[in-house]
């Protein structure tokens, strides 16, 4: 638990919906994203990728390409000093043993998925680089591939990797489920399928690298993880302190910029040519080559008592890990731990596997394995409720986890679990049921709840650091290595520092995302930045405050406990005050530091044996409930979203406007995955490599999302905040599927919930269909 922080009876800045500093820059279009950067003498670079999903490279000749006009470098695997990348755990931790997995920077003798990088080209112009890439002679010998995880695990399946196609396997067994099922009054079985989903941020992968005047390879790149400077150094085989990654404000990340994208290529080309190099992926390249969200096949068997209490659950999860491991094993771990949802289930068995295929790689995306399972467990919950005649809120209320309960993995929930009240609130917020507009339209409502971890797995010993300091004029500087993906990561830190140190937001300057110049803060992933870096800034600010007040106390002739910092002044009881700059000058004379560097360590733990279920896996969880009202066109299967409400207990909202924005944006991303989005593959070949075919929601596809920001006052973050980046993406697909079932009596179990699938389920395509 974070310490209870009560600096003022009423907070001045924390908890208020303050406009973000970066929003001003962004509306003025003053923000320089990665692709908006340039250097004198800069080369343009491109990647040559495999057109095959599974093939052997029998010939790779770059001679003609290298001789073409303007070409500065053509690199293949043999030019890469160390051609492997560890893909297991980005960030500060370097070893987790059994999860360690690697991939090639550039393909050697084999390609395992369409879009796998084969060669790099840098040239004076982009056209020259592209022309040279086309001129590289590659001969492929197509090999058999495997494109489905079930098939990949069958005997005799083509091997994607020599060691076999099973990449990871997690298991939980808690309680005597056989005996519990024998006692169940109702047993519901279902199989649920989710699809490949793309992060589809608006800003494609991009960056510029140069060798700085001190010889350090400097890479300014759109990334969620500036700590990849170490990966670049490993590949280049140079010391880690000779690579610097600068992370500018991102045009979206959503997990898709957690793994390395362009930075290693840029490092290689800058080192080889000695010149600045730029690489910007096209949208087509991004949709083709970036790791996707894992498709899952989830089999659930749930038993409940006659009164509706869940007594047992058997869960079998199988995920498509694509051609390379990336973060698949960890994603699967999240699924395993959250598979039973925010419910008390005394007897649970979970079998979770993921398998290599020749499909595109799969890795992190917002929700990180804890979101696919929501579709399954919330569909199951609805079906049990219907089987027993319990309404959606009642069945969830009966089974909701409470503080002190434990998850199937054995982790005891130590903070408030807002489960039943969130469900009640969103359900009530839908308001009175409206009649259908036409005879062929039916209206339905659905509810879905979820839990999502925030913060990294406890045995990764997560930490973040931040520096907070006053300038002599009383203005404040925050330095923190956080990448800002657009969620207001940096501005929340400003709000926290300004709160503690009694200055206005406009007096704070924040420097973020520079692996050489800002204290490392770890990844902007896992809903962890507000929690981790927020705590680091809070700690630094409080230390700095104490330093300052200790100097001010004798100046004002009072104890420092009687002092406050308000509006740029140290204020004593009774109204006497000193301008902060006066105190800072005294600090300077007395040699007292006017800044503080703090490191926040998350609660750590030892690895848990999942099978026996014995302890903490994640620091804590954020709970949520979403409710949807839909209209179904019973003649076409079209689903129109009419109303959408989403509630999450965020502990404390540092900036309620930003929190609402996370909830609304996450919900709409989840609705996209629920209704529209699907990477369509034929034998590993991607048919959806444009924004005209990969369909993300437009403004006209979704209704307003009513965000209910619930503050229990409990959470591990600063001022008792909880993480909110990922949680809202979990429930939407299930909420809509449940609403469709409510309207039509038909249950869809495959995502996305397309009109054609619904039409088929409604029998509209008949026998002829």
């Amino acid at each position, binding site marked *: 638990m974070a310490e209870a922080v009560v600096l003022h009876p009423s907070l001045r800045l924390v908890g208020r*919906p303050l*406009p*973000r500093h*970066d*929003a*001003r*820059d*962004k*509306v*003025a*279009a003053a*923000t*320089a*994203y990665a*692709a*908006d950067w*340039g250097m004198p003498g800069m080369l343009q670079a491109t990647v040559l990728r495999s057109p095959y999903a599974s093939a052997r490279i029998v010939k790779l000749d770059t001679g003609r390409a290298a001789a073409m006009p303007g070409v500065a470098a053509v690199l293949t695997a043999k030019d890469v000093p160390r051609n492997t990348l560890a893909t297991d755990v980005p960030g500060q931790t370097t070893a987790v043993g059994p999860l360690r997995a690697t991939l090639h920077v550039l393909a050697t003798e084999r390609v395992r998925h369409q879009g796998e990088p084969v060669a790099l080209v840098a040239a004076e112009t982009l056209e020259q680089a592209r022309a040279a890439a086309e001129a590289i002679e590659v001969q492929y010998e197509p090999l058999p591939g495997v494109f489905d995880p079930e098939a990949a695990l069958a005997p005799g399946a083509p091997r994607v990797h020599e060691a076999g196609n099973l990449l990871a396997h997690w298991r939980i067994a808690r309680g005597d489920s056989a005996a519990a099922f024998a006692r169940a009054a109702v047993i519901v079985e279902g199989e649920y399928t989710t699809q490949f989903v793309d992060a*589809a*941020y*608006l*800003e*494609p992968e991009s960056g510029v690298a140069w060798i700085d005047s001190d010889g350090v390879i400097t890479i300014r790149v759109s990334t969620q993880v500036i700590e990849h400077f170490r990966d670049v150094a490993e590949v280049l085989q140079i010391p880690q302190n000779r690579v610097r990654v600068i992370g500018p*404000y*991102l*045009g*979206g990340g*959503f997990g898709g910029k957690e793994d390395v994208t362009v930075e290693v290529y840029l490092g290689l080309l800058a080192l080889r040519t000695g010149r600045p190099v730029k690489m*910007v992926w*096209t*949208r*087509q390249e991004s949709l083709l080559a970036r790791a996707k969200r894992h498709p899952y096949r989830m089999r659930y068997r749930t038993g409940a008592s006659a009164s509706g209490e869940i007594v047992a659950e058997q869960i079998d999860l199988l995920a498509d890990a694509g051609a390379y491991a990336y973060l698949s094993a960890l994603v699967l771990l999240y699924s395993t731990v959250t598979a039973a949802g925010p419910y008390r289930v005394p007897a649970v068995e979970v079998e979770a596997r993921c398998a290599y295929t020749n499909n595109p790689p799969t890795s992190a995306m917002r929700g990180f394995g804890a979101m696919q399972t929501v579709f399954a467990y919330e569909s199951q919950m609805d079906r049990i409720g219907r089987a027993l005649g319990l309404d959606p809120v009642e069945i969830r209320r009966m089974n909701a986890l409470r503080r002190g309960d434990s998850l199937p993995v054995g982790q005891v929930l130590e903070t408030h679990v807002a489960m039943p009240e969130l469900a009640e609130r969103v359900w009530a917020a839908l308001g009175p049921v409206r009649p259908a507009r036409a005879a062929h339209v039916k209206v339905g409502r659905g509810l879905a709840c979820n839990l999502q971890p925030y913060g990294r797995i406890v045995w990764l010993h997560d930490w973040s650091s931040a520096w907070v300091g006053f300038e002599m004029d009383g203005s404040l500087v925050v330095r923190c290595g956080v990448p800002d*993906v*657009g*969620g*207001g990561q940096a501005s929340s830190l400003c709000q926290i520092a300004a709160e503690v140190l009694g200055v206005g937001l406009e007096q704070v300057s924040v420097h973020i995302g520079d692996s050489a110049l800002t204290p490392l803060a770890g990844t902007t992933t896992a809903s962890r930045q507000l929690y981790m870096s927020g705590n680091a800034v809070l700690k630094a600010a409080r230390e700095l405050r104490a330093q300052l007040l200790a100097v001010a106390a004798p100046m004002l002739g009072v104890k420092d406990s009687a002092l406050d910092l308000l509006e740029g002044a140290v204020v004593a009881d009774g109204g006497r005050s000193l301008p902060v700059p006066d105190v800072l000058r005294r600090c300077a004379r007395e040699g007292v530091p006017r800044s503080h560097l703090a490191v926040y360590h998350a609660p750590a733990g030892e690895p848990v044996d999942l099978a026996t279920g014995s302890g903490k896996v994640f620091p804590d969880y954020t709970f949520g409930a979403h409710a949807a009202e839909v209209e179904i066109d019973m003649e076409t299967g079209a689903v129109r979203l009419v109303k959408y409400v989403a509630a999450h207990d965020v502990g404390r909202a540092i900036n309620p*406007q*930003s929190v*609402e*924005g996370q909830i*609304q*944006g*996450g*919900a*709409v*991303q989840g609705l996209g995955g629920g209704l529209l989005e699907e990477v369509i593959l034929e034998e590993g070949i991607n048919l959806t490599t*444009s*924004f*005209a075919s990969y369909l*993300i929601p*437009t*403004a*006209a*596809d*979704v209704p*307003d*999302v009513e*965000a209910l920001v619930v503050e229990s006052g409990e959470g591990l973050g600063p001022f008792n905040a909880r993480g909110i980046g990922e949680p809202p993406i979990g429930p939407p697909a299930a909420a809509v599927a449940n609403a469709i079932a409510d309207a039509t009596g038909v249950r869809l179990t495959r995502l996305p919930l397309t009109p054609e699938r619904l039409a088929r389920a409604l029998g509209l395509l008949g026998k002829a269909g």
Partner: protein
Amino acid sequence: MIRRLVVNGRARELDVLPHQTLLEVLRDTLGIFEVKEGCGEGVCGACTVLLEGRPVSSCLVLALAVRGRAILTVRGLEGEGGLHPLQEAFVKSGAVQCGFCTPGMLLTALAFLEHHPRPTREAIRAALEGNLCRCTGYTKIVDAVLAYARGDEGHG
């Protein structure tokens, strides 16, 4: 070919190749980076500019084809007093997250409001359907456009 492009009221003579899109020329030749490239095929709206008042995808316009015609980018909105009121409304309403769609969104909204000064939320959504945003879920963008439209009424 030396051609004249008129961007935000300022004429510039520059060398344009036949295949170059307006987006390429704005970014790579003129250094006008407020115009973003999100998809290169006219779907996402990040590269929206106003061509004689109408929104166009600068990635789908050959630069030579718009020689001499008035092009407005988001930087052209700012008056002497600073941000345009719609920009202020975006800041205040929390309509900006990553900000990559924002310049195009602002220009599309302004072109729409020119002819529809008192829009409904539904009309705003329909008007913005060609500008993708992956962060906000659109609710606060609609809030911002509506707040601005109402504010204009108040001032008018």
